[in-house]
């Protein structure tokens, strides 16, 4: 195993890892054993190395949208931002090799290897009036064999989802990890002049407004099913917690306590909600049933206790408290108590989000007058700063892979959302156009 003793980075594409995972939990993982055989590749990768993957244009057997380039752009974005692949970038050479293959009617493995590729994705698609389909075969070039072949079908306007599913399948087959290409991000935008909750694909496409508020909708938080989003709504002179159904747009009221009804975090099992209420005269953290009933107070202090979020196992809560005089990240049991402080650097640490892997909490930290995104290791207290430039950033939210983060950054008076691989630290802008884009929440 090249997977080291106490590595903080997850292992990159590694055949042995998949086999080992299957061996460890033999009873559960029969499908994985089968998969492990799928990926008995001839490549082996050390830690941090990426697999080089080539994607020639998929020919279309029909006409109309999308263009082959559109399909490839989506797939290359997915693969190159998965964290596991380097895309062979000289697309002219890639397409020339593909033409040669088609002319000869066979795959010239040597030519593809000479381009630096290790994995080759070949496909074709057709977009009709009623259906889109995509057929692909993924090849291990050194082994000179096909690893898997799949066909995806969708409605014509659902082709991006089909391409994302293909990317996630490639990631799963080759690494054993779940990809994030099929995930979504909820966020707040004031593009209409009113702050509303929206949802989009993780790559920024298919942006869609979910709420129709008279005042504003803020602080979206996903239910783990991905079907509903809780958010704070202003109704008349009250703040309330509502939930919106992502498919139908139907909303329902969950809470309407006096004062704050904010920062809802739905538990990993979907049964409970943490939120900040001030109904007892001070902002404190409460635990409720997910229908908004049975509010139970968890914190008792004269300071501000706020912005709660669950640990992925549901047993602990990260939150902000200014009991030390300044806002700092704290952790307590999910049954309540005083908890303990986990951030000690800086004087303004807020908006904690617990990584789905359980080890890190991402948060916003004011450093030299600028709000930056950091992580703190819950056990060791080690702080890692993820962003550096002088723009204000806030509200990190984790992708389900525990490797990617989305946050908002303000530039020239306008806020946009950025995707960040916490190991590569090169942010990708996801939003554009009029208005601010804020408070991102990544689906589970």
């Amino acid at each position, binding site marked *: 195993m090249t997977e080291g003793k106490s590595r903080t980075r997850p292992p990159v594409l590694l055949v042995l890892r998949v086999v080992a995972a299957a061996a460890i939990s033999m009873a559960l993982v029969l499908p994985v054993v089968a998969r492990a055989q799928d990926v008995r590749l001839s490549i082996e990768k050390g830690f941090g190395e990426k697999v080089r993957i080539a994607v020639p244009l998929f020919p279309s057997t029909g006409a109309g949208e999308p263009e082959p380039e559109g399909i490839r752009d989506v797939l290359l974005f997915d693969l190159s931002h998965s964290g596991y692949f380097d895309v062979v970038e000289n697309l002219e050479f890639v397409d020339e090799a593909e033409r040669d293959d088609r002319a000869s009617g066979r795959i010239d493995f040597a030519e593809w290897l000479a381009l630096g590729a290790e994995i080759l994705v070949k496909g074709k698609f057709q977009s009709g009036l009623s259906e889109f389909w995509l057929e692909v075969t993924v090849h291990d070039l050194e082994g000179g064999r096909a690893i898997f072949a799949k066909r995806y079908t969708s409605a014509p306007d659902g082709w991006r989802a089909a391409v994302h599913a293909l990317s996630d399948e490639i990631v799963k087959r080759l690494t054993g990890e779940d990809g994030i290409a099929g995930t979504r991000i909820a966020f707040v935008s004031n593009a209409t002049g009113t*702050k509303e909750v929206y949802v989009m694909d993780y790559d920024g496409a298919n942006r869609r407004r979910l709420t129709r508020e008279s005042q*504003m909708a803020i602080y979206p938080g996903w239910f783990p099913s991905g079907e509903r989003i809780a958010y704070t709504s202003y109704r008349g*002179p009250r703040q309330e917690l509502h939930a919106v159904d992502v498919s139908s747009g139907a909303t329902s009221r969950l809470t309407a306590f006096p*004062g704050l009804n904010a920062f809802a975090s739905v538990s990993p099992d979907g049964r409970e909600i943490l939120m*900040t209420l001030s109904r007892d005269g001070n902002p404190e953290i409460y635990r409720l049933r997910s229908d908004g009933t049975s509010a139970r107070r968890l914190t008792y202090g004269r300071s*501000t206790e*706020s912005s709660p979020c669950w640990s992925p196992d549901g047993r602990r809560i990260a939150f902000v408290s200014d009991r030390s005089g300044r806002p700092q990240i704290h952790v307590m049991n999910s049954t309540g108590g005083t908890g303990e402080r986990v951030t000690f650097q800086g004087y*303004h640490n807020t908006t904690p989000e617990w990584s789905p892997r359980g080890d890190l909490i991402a948060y916003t930290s004011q450093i030299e007058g600028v709000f930056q995104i950091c992580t703190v290791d819950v056990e060791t207290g080690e702080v890692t700063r993820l962003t550096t430039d002088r723009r204000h950033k*806030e509200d990190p939210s984790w992708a389900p892979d525990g490797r990617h983060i989305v946050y908002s950054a303000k530039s020239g008076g306008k806020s946009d959302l950025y995707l960040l691989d916490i190991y590569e630290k090169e942010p990708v802008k996801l939003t554009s156009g009029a208005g601010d884009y804020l408070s991102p929440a990544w689906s589970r």
Partner: protein
Amino acid sequence: MRRGVVLLLVVAFAAGVVFGLSGCAGRKPTEEPVVEPEVSEETDALTGEDIPLPDVDDTVFVEPLSPEFENIHFEFDRYDIRPVDEPILESIASWLEQHEDVKVLIEGHCDERGTNEYNMALGEQRALAARRYLVSLGVEAQRLSTISYGEERPLDPRSTEEAWAKNRRAHFTVSD
């Protein structure tokens, strides 16, 4: 009926304010420009049409006239009441004493600095601090509700010290 009494009181109060103001302004004759009606050749065409009289009860008293309470302000990142604002809170408390049926909504606001979530909690603390102060002056707690707008509703959208100082405020309105 009770609502009607409240409305009358509020109207009476507002009238008093207006009367007082005009008294202060003195009796300087105002020069209003006289607008000459435009005479058209085709006046006959504009005879108009009779419509039913509006229901007075529904239209005249749609919104209760509420007094304009002064805002109180806060230091950066603080929510304690400044001594300079105590007279404002005292005047609100004594007004509430004279208008026992009226309830007040206290809005807490922040400047744009700090994270959005932090400011939402801070705005609530400002509203709660004003509420506690009014309660300490004898106002019943259940007549005072709070709402935080965090940094969402600045009075002055600029990013200057002057604007920020204006935006760090608690605002008082009569609620139902």
